[in-house]
């Protein structure tokens, strides 16, 4: 078990990073830190994907010098997925940052709990 963890250290690190990002996004009170957590979480998945697509000793999947053998290149699909994923996570981050700016202008705070308290007080 332990040997496996050490052997697949890319994946192990990716999962640990995913956990860090996930808990930061879930538990941290500060909006900006939440967004950082979100980015750590997404990037960890990309690391995982890239590690899975990589095959030792092979080239990036771009045809150069006329080498067309399949064995010369790594698996290109995970790289494609990472690119798509990056686009998604950039747009989501942009939405979150925009919301954070609006929240800060409205309540003057970045602390989600504090904002909730203020909002509840205003309602009364």
């Amino acid at each position, binding site marked *: 078990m332990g040997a496996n963890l050490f052997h697949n250290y890319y994946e192990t690190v990716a999962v640990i990073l*995913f956990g860090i*990002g*996930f808990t930061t*996004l*879930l538990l941290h009170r500060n*909006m900006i830190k*939440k967004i950082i957590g*979100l980015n750590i*979480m*997404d990037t960890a*998945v990309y690391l*995982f*994907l890239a590690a*899975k697509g990589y095959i030792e000793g092979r080239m990036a999947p771009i045809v150069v010098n006329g080498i067309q053998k399949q064995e010369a290149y790594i698996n290109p*699909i*995970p790289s494609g*997925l990472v690119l*798509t*994923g990056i686009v*998604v996570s950039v*747009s*989501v981050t942009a*939405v*979150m940052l925009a*919301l*954070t700016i*609006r*929240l800060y202008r*409205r*309540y003057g705070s970045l602390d*989600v709990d504090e*904002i*909730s308290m203020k*909002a509840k007080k*205003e*309602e009364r």
Partner: protein
Amino acid sequence: MEFIRNLPFIGIFLCMSTGVINSVLDGKWAKKVSFTVITANLFMSILVLYYVWQTKQSYIYVMGHHPAPWGNEIRFGILEGAFATFFCLIMLLSVLGGVKRLEEDISEKRSNLYYVLVNLLMAAILALTYTNDLFTAYVFVEIMTIGACGIIVIRGEGRSLLASVKYMIMSLLGSGLILIGLTLIYDLTGHLLMSNIQEAAQQLVKSGQYQVPFTSAIALISVGLAMKSALFPFHSWLPDAYTYATSASSAILSSLVSKAYIFLLIKIYYRVIGLSIIFQNKILNILFLFGIAGMIFGSLSAIRQDDLKKMIAYSSVAQIGYIYMGIGLGTTAGMLAAVFHIMSHAASKSMMFLSASGLSQVSGRSCNYRKLIGAAHRNRIAGFAFLVGAFSMVGIPMTAGYISKVYFAQAAIQAPYQFKMIITVITLGISTILNAVYFIRALIVIYQPLKGQKQGADGRRDFRMAVALWALVVTNLFLGMHSDAVVDLLRAGLRMFC
């Protein structure tokens, strides 16, 4: 007739492209474009449904020029056709019913943006219904998250901002889990198309290798989608989001967005993992327990509310619990009941949110029970629609909710484990009583006779809302009274889904 096979793709493409065009139009034109596109999609989905019903088989539509293991695919059978039709219908009626309130809530200058989001959501819902590719499903899940966040925040008030931030945080946690689950499944099977993954998964289970990663991938995806569709312990975002959004948004969120995620989950169980594997999997028991807990605690929270919209929102938590309970039973009968309840709940909840908005319109724009006293006399159609919706939620015969309760109970009795059967039947009973408690309280409040004050409508009649509410009442009663036809359709669809 061959041309009909193109319609699912054309529908999705039309929604997306007109969404982009809407962003430069002014509000009135954007509204016209949006309504035209959704209506066109409704007719196209009906055609697709008719076509697959006639030919009794499902079709695969290859996107681009790459064949099966590499390319992207759209697949449509009876179930997809039926749900696309239904989702389009509910979307049309929700926006139609909420359009007056929308014009009051959003400034004229920004109102075209709402229709951008509506078109985006429609495209995402259709894509999730039709897609045969797991990663495309993930991308559209994210698009739907952004769209849903947009329609919550568009009122621009403090509370709706906060609600949308809460929604985004929970949703993003869910999408993170879905993404890593998909990655694991891709690593284990080497495919992204649903049918190919299923073949590889069967072999994987037969060979007995990698059982732990496979199970954890299923668990991650299930929990991720459960978070997004507000299953009980993850429902913290739901009440705020539904309460502080404009009424059309609440209707869309409760009846379409969360339902599309559940539809995707069912699709993943049927088409990616395979029924024989998933019915053996313990994750269904967890969904079952969460569903049961949601049924009870959602209703208990709903009883404590004195705001009508918040009460309806908490009742949604309970109803989502019903659906997950049906999935968690682990039988095809349970799945059928869950799928039918997706329809019946969507038809009732959108109606209730719209009628709540109609009732508050004549009660000084408040949903508080004290202000709502006698509201049903001031706005009769909204009151009647609320009555039908409440009956449907409680499960009075002739309404859609009654039929889904009957099917849940039947599925429970046929369930292989006695333990699950007893729990389901008892909880169904308790939950029905709890539903009755809070809905009858609301009905008593809104139907209280007014003394001295003038009874009758207060001049400003909302014609579009009346049309939408009548149509939803008819849909609900149709689901309730012609349930055999609908259930046969769904059963054939689920069989085709395997």
